[in-house]
């Protein structure tokens, strides 16, 4: 079994989940609590990565992240390096690819917060920002957990996008799903099955963790 690929996969899923929780929370908050012109359009844009086939997302990401692309140029002039075909590159791709799965459950959770709790927070002098951190977030743990589960598992399964942006470099960007793909393509079905089965305990362990965090925060 390709342990190195499995390791890269877990690292990627973990990093993506952590970053995305931080990035998605303010976006979800904006969508849940504010009304502004073009809001639905922004929302549609946020969800677009989900509606597009991974190869298409990958294609556009290559264009912007390549040394001649906008992001690639900025990055190159700052660090001298390239984004494509690096772990950082696939992390960014994976974050963009999974944004909708983080934003949507969080938005649903935020919008269910009892308005009266927020009113009390304002009365107690909390700014909107502080109320978000101290009241909305802790009372949305279930939704945030849902988001984390979706993002984590989705990053494990991400493959089309990562294959394109990552270039399948062992130890750096070759993730387990690429290994499975190779195994299936080369008719090595038992290896594919083995790798696929290895995802069950991983998902299982992650779910146990999230459920535990969720429960702890409630009791």
């Amino acid at each position, binding site marked *: 079994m390709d342990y190195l690929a499995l390791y890269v996969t877990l690292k990627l899923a973990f990093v993506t989940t952590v970053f995305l929780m931080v990035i998605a929370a303010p976006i979800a908050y904006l969508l849940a609590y504010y009304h502004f012109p073009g809001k639905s359009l922004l929302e549609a844009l946020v969800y677009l990565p989900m509606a597009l086939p991974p190869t298409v997302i990958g294609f556009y990401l290559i264009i912007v992240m390549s040394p001649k692309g906008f992001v690639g140029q900025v990055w190159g002039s700052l660090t001298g390096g390239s984004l494509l075909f690096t772990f950082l590159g696939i992390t960014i791709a994976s974050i963009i690819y999974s944004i909708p799965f983080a934003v949507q459950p969080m938005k649903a959770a935020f919008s269910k917060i009892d308005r009266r709790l927020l009113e*009390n927070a304002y009365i107690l002098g*909390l700014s909107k920002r502080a109320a978000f951190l101290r*009241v909305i977030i802790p009372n949305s743990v279930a939704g945030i957990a849902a988001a984390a589960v979706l993002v984590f598992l989705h990053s494990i399964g991400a493959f089309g996008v990562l294959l394109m942006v990552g270039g399948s470099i062992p130890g750096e960007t070759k993730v387990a799903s690429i290994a499975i793909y190779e195994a299936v393509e080369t008719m090595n079905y038992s290896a594919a099955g083995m790798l696929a089965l290895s995802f069950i305990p991983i998902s299982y362990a992650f779910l146990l963790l999230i459920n535990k965090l969720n429960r702890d925060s409630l009791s």
Partner: protein
Amino acid sequence: MTISASIKRRLKYYDLDLSFTCATNKMMVMIGPSGGGKTTIIRMLAGLEKPDEGQVIFGDEVWFDSERRINITPQKRRLGYVFQDYNLFPHLNLLDNAAFAAVEKKEVDDLFELLKISHLKKRRPHMVSGGERQRCAICQALARHPRLLLLDEPFSALDVVTRRGLREELKSLKGRLSCPIIYVTHDIHEALFLADEILPVVDGKIDRGWMQRTITREPGEAVQAKGAREPRLSLVY
């Protein structure tokens, strides 16, 4: 500091339209029939709702002025508000709830002592009785050192004995808090005991005759006629 308000607001079945003033160390008690507009008035003072017209002035700060389009946020008003349906934060235990915006955390312990819920510090709101939740909400509001205290039926879930005790405490606190207090209650004894001024609110207006009509047998309308049949209260000091 003195809070003075003069507010109008169109509601579905009547219009709110009244003015009042309440000075530091004074307690104004609002009383009146259910649905009469007391909670709505309190919410407007707190900045949670906007009057259609009028002013709310606190000392030399203008909190609300419909003509000058001033409307200060609740945060900046720095007041204490015990909601009618005690909005404690469900994710925090009682102590953390009370200390949520406390000026000095140490004081919270004293407040818990005063309100007799020290033994419940570590419980979450859904694990305590209605009266206990209410007392925690009072701690939360007081710990903030408010410049104006709004209490919307804060003792409604308490038994007579506890209530009497707390009523006393509140009365003696009044001097120390040095802020205006506006208190909503349905309990006429409480009103008479606590109030420096009583503001009877009936269908959005001040109706100075309401107390009299309610306490005495004077049969104003059907409800009261019925009410009059029950044992009458006479106040013996």
